[in-house]
């Protein structure tokens, strides 16, 4: 469904990605692992068109590298950023509504589904989003992207800095959207979650993919874990 070939990306003069190759199939849950600063977020942003990609990215056979972010979103890719980027000044409900691509046009995911997934969001529906706790903001930002009804959702470090109870909820959320047939690209540092939910994993180091395989492959491969993942 998504194919990334020889992807390079730059921030100003610094060369961040050095030819990333990866692909995600329909309904597949894929994790992108690696330490901070190896280029995982940049990979996501390049796919989304938020960082100018150099290389070839195709989605359902159509070249999307070079398109505007909103065009890519309309092709069916959703992005949940690591820094959450909730919209201050708007309520929780308004934030969710902005996730819909057209006014009042709910897709498979409806406002009520978001509230069912996270009842906390319904309680906070009319609260200005900027006063929500970190965990609530994470729920909000994930649901906001879901409201746009993506076929492929890229989720960047959803559990970072959250309390264990909420990490558990996020894990359940990932399993639930996976079971709905959506494809997921999960960026994680916590090996435990990634190993549990993914069918396939990529490990990144220094702007390149250094390992590709199944969770059991990675569990068996101690050298990759030591060199590229463990701190």
């Amino acid at each position, binding site marked *: 469904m998504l194919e990334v070939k020889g992807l390079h990306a730059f921030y100003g003069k610094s060369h961040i990605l050095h030819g990333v190759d990866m692909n995600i199939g329909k309904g597949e849950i894929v994790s992108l692992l690696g330490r901070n600063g190896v280029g995982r977020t940049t990979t996501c942003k390049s796919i989304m*068109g938020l960082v100018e990609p150099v290389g070839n990215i195709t989605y359902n056979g159509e070249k999307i590298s070079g398109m505007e972010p*909103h065009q890519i*979103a309309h092709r069916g890719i959703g*992005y949940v950023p690591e820094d959450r*980027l909730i*919209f201050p000044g708007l309520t929780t409900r308004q*934030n969710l509504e*902005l996730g819909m*691509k057209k006014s009042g046009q709910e897709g498979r995911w409806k406002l009520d589904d978001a509230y069912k997934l996270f009842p906390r969001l319904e309680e906070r529906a009319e609260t200005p989003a900027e006063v929500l706790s970190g965990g609530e903001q994470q729920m909000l930002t994930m649901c906001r*992207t879901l409201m746009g009804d993506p076929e492929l959702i890229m989720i960047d470090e959803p559990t970072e800095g959250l309390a264990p109870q909420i990490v558990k909820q996020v894990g359940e959320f990932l399993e639930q959207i996976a079971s709905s047939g959506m494809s997921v690209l999960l960026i994680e540092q916590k090996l435990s979650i990634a190993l549990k939910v993914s069918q396939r994993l990529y490990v990144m180091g220094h702007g390149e993919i250094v390992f590709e395989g199944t969770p059991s492959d990675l569990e068996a491969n101690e050298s990759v874990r030591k060199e590229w993942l463990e701190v």
Partner: protein
Amino acid sequence: MLESLIFTIFNGVLYGMLLFMLASGLTLIFGMMGVLNFAHASFYMLGAYFAYQVSVFAGFWAALFLAPLGVALIGALTERYGLRQVHQHGHVAELLFTFGLVYVIEEVVHLVWGRTPVNYQVPEALDFTLFTLFTTDFPAYRAFMLGVAIFMFVGIFLLLTKTRIGQVVQASLSHPDMVGALGHNVPRVFTLVFAFGCALAGLAGVIAGNYFITEPGMAWNMGPIVFVVVVFGGLGSLGGALVGSLIIGLAQTFAVQMTFSIASVLADMGLAISEDAFLSGFWFLELSRIGPMLPYLLLVLMLIFRPRGLMGTRAD
């Protein structure tokens, strides 16, 4: 005293609302795109000239609607085919682009309408005294200007808070990239906001051009003061632009009325200062003569002590 106080407050609020019509657009454009549009007051001037031209053929009421639309169109073209191309080269390039635009628009105005003021008059239907309080006449046109400004303010408020496009704009004020990633056409929203801001400036030109004078220097008279307002109120903050407009509007209007100096105040308290005292020029300086400097002094002090302005949220 009471009479002049009431009228000064009224005029100050009116001037403030006029400033707000420019400042609101400028601050929204900055908040969304990070562009400090030096040419904003030039669109105000274009509004006045367009209104003059339309009113020659079709009268004031047609001008009231057509001139802001014309300015909006020019604004949209400026954003789409000018700023958006320049944007890739960074903020300094954008700033210089809008700076250049000020001169381009001024020269175009010179070419089309000449260097002297044009005869743009208050419409006859509004050219009467609305009421007389004590001994001062209050012109109906002022009430009309105030009405338009308030109508526009309520309009912006409802548009931003009650409509979906307004919410997209609000969201784009903080995280435009994310708004794009959710599937909203952010470049188009930018064009719309830029055009809308220009239309507001144009509308201000339509209603102020005949009250003041429509001449090629009017952009230069208004431009700097609008910058003071948005920096003072906090760049990107609409509430700040409103408060800033009213404060600067009132401060300037009041200062012009004040004929006392430090020496006259001291004299009232029984401490006369002689004309040849040390620094007598300073002691006898009337407050009204400091008036024009006041906004810029406020700007400079604000930047030193509270760089994000009264209600701004951006640290940069």
